[in-house]
């Protein structure tokens, strides 16, 4: 069967004008050309969606996912490339677009359905169904200008969903309406899936993609950076968010991650994951660490300066940063290792993890203890422990040494977790060394569970005939 949607080498180019001349008069005065900046919203996008597939488009704001959806829908024309779709398309991009306040709900249903490509006979046939779905039986002959925004959205959704599309384009519209209506929309989409219709869903929400989609694409600055398995894509999406957050220079062009073969194009990895576990990069981090402080160390120092300048620092968990780093013991290098898998830069839930810390003590220290804390992406503490908690004998340290934190299993579902390490004296006052968020690890959930903890579960149902 021919694919429901084929996107071939699609690029979309926008001109960003500082000031646009939109009248003949202005054009005559200013000359014919206005200065503008070039902006490629999409670059060489290729997609193929089979019939009956539900595909998620992930990407941060401005990544081009909505532009792509508008191109697929035909609202925008791609500058280059070709989009072929087979079957009736309905788009839930903007609910109730084209509603006219002066007209009744009834007239607007006809108008809106016609806009979505339905003919009059079809609308007549589905009219009752649309009204019932929108729950607007008693207001259907009221002018739409008297509707609440929720009512209008409901009517818009009801029309769009009832045009019986073979391809449904959804752009974050589930955010409107009350909870029961949202639930209804989700149910309807599930039903569409069961009926073998094609759904393309644009969203910020990884959970939606994980639950709904059989396949996903991740867009970053108009380029597809990952495609395939939803879990993998959620991870790539998270990484692109982190990369954007750290304001790294974006790669000029990056090859998409080929998840089918489990390989990741090296440029992407390098650009998106600074100081990641892949050995080459980790070495580079280690090298810079010995000669000059790492980025995170600089952050710590800045934080300390700021903290000391503030007259009354707020009492927060990082208040200990006020105490200056003693420096008798120095953390030279931190390496996160995934013992069960060397090639993947992320863990699957339940896999082991080990953190290797190389340190050097410039004098003999006998009261040191090692602590490790894991933070979630939101900055919440997931886990914290140390030699003191586990009552591990540290002994006297002098010269170079290595501490290995071996986690038997990481029962986390999905996320980007940072690691903070500290070497302190038992007399709580001295901090020999303290590296906040010095390293991170990632867990990718290939399944459809939601949440953050991987709790093993089997379900048994009794009393079934």
């Amino acid at each position: 069967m021919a694919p429901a949607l084929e996107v071939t080498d699609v690029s979309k180019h926008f001109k960003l004008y500082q000031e646009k001349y939109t009248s003949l008069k202005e054009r005559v005065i200013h000359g014919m050309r206005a200065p503008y900046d070039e902006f490629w919203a999409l670059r060489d996008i290729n997609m193929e969606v089979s019939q009956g597939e539900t595909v998620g488009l992930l990407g941060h704001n401005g990544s081009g996912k909505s532009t792509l959806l508008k191109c697929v829908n035909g609202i925008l024309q791609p500058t280059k490339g070709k989009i072929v779709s087979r079957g009736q398309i309905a788009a839930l991009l903007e609910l109730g677009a084209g509603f006219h306040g002066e007209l009744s709900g009834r007239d607007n249903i006809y108008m809106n359905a016609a806009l979505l490509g339905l003919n009059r006979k079809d609308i007549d046939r589905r009219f009752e169904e649309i009204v019932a779905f929108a729950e607007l039986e008693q207001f259907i002959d009221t002018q739409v200008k008297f509707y609440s925004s929720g009512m209008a959205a409901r009517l818009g959704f009801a029309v769009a969903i009832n045009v019986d599309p073979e391809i449904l384009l959804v752009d974050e519209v589930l955010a409107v309406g009350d909870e029961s209506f949202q639930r209804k929309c989700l149910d309807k989409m599930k039903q569409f899936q069961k009926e073998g219709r094609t759904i393309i869903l644009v969203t910020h929400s990884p959970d939606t993609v994980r639950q709904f989609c059989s396949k996903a694409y991740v867009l970053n600055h108009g380029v597809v950076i990952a495609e395939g398995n939803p879990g993998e894509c959620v991870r790539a999406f998270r990484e692109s968010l982190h990369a954007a957050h750290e304001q790294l220079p974006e790669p000029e062009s990056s090859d998409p991650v080929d998840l089918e073969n489990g390989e990741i194009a090296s440029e992407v990895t390098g650009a998106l994951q600074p100081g990641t576990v892949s050995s080459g990069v980790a070495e580079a981090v280690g090298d810079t660490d010995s000669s000059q402080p790492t980025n995170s160390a600089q952050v710590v120092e800045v934080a300390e300066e700021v903290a000391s300048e503030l007259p009354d620092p707020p009492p927060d968990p990082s208040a200990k940063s006020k105490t200056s780093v003693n420096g008798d013991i120095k953390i030279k290098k931190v390496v996160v290792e995934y013992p069960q898998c060397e090639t993947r830069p992320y863990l699957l839930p339940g896999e082991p993890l080990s953190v290797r810390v190389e340190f050097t003590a410039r004098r003999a220290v006998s009261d040191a203890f090692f602590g490790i804390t894991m933070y979630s992406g939101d900055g919440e503490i997931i886990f914290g422990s140390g030699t003191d908690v586990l009552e591990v004998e540290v002994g006297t340290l002098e010269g170079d040494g290595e501490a290995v934190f071996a986690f038997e299993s990481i029962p986390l579902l999905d996320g980007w977790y940072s690691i903070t390490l500290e070497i302190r004296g038992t007399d709580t006052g001295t901090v020999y060394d303290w590296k906040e968020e010095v390293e991170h690890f990632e867990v990718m959930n290939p399944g459809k569970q939601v949440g953050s903890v991987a709790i093993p579960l089997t379900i048994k149902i009794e009393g079934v005939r």
Partner: protein
Amino acid sequence: MSFQSEIDASIPPLDEPVAGFAAVGDPATDRPRSRPSQRVNVVTANNRVWPRVARMWRERDLLAQMVGREMKVRYKNSVLGFAWSMLNPTLQLVVYVLVFQGIMGNGIPDFAIFLLCGLVVWNFFTSAVAGATGAIVGNGDLIKKVSFSREILAVAAIGSSSIFFLIQSGILIAALVLFGFSPQWHYLPLLVPAIIALALFTAALAIFLSAANVYLRDTQHLLEVVLMAWFWATPIVYSYNGFVVPKLPVKVDKNGHLISTSFLVKYHLTWLPMKEIYLANPITPIVLTFQRALWGNKRAKASSGSASKIHAVAGAWQLPLFGPMWYFDLLLGVIGISTILLFAAIKVFGRLEGNFAEEF
């Protein structure tokens, strides 16, 4: 190590949907998929005319909805409804009759009918073109959010104007019957090519201007000025043979001198092909055809025989004294040129349409 086995080792797979979604898709309410349509949509920067026309045709129901919406919105809240739409043309008619016949005495018999023949054509043309010019800009919200054949917005403006055209034609026919006019039978079939020519030319201009106005938003205002000049360049309030031809330097006496009071002589512009220039206005042949076929002669009544005959001759003299073929050739020319213009307009529209959604 395979991907799947790793998953299995770590966590039990959840093949069934999570509890929250388990109740979904009750088979009782499942609607069987209607017609797996073979409809193929292609979106590219490459726009050709025929696919665009085909899409317009596919979405003709939308066109009907849009015309209906326009009518409903415009007249929803007025008690007299459509009657209001006739107020403006009625007043226009009364004023022109008073000024040109009452005050200036132009001597055109049954001047009100003569005027109406021209005004029916002109009002359709001007309201369709002006309406279409603002149609895309006025529906920016729709353009940004919904995908449909955008030409339909321009064509819908023509659609609403044709409803008024029909109403005004009805009034004209009623007046013709009331005042005892009989159509000129051998000119009457010319109304068919005349209406085709009018529709094609209006569509070409409407589609082109609707797109142009998106990029040059003052097109709308410029158009008003042009339409005003255009109105006076068309024989609507004056007659072609009665007022235009005498100004054309066409007659030469036996000494080779021009017999004409034309300003063209005075300003040494006799070399200009004035007649051709005047008739190059595509609306002129259409208006002339309407006048010739409908107003052309009044039926001689048996009771007041000879007087009416003279009357009828006086009327026909105001129009080009040629047979139907002269009119037909002109109309054919307009149809030909309009068809080419319409193709060009759709082509230009397709070019410009790609960026419409970015202009609002």
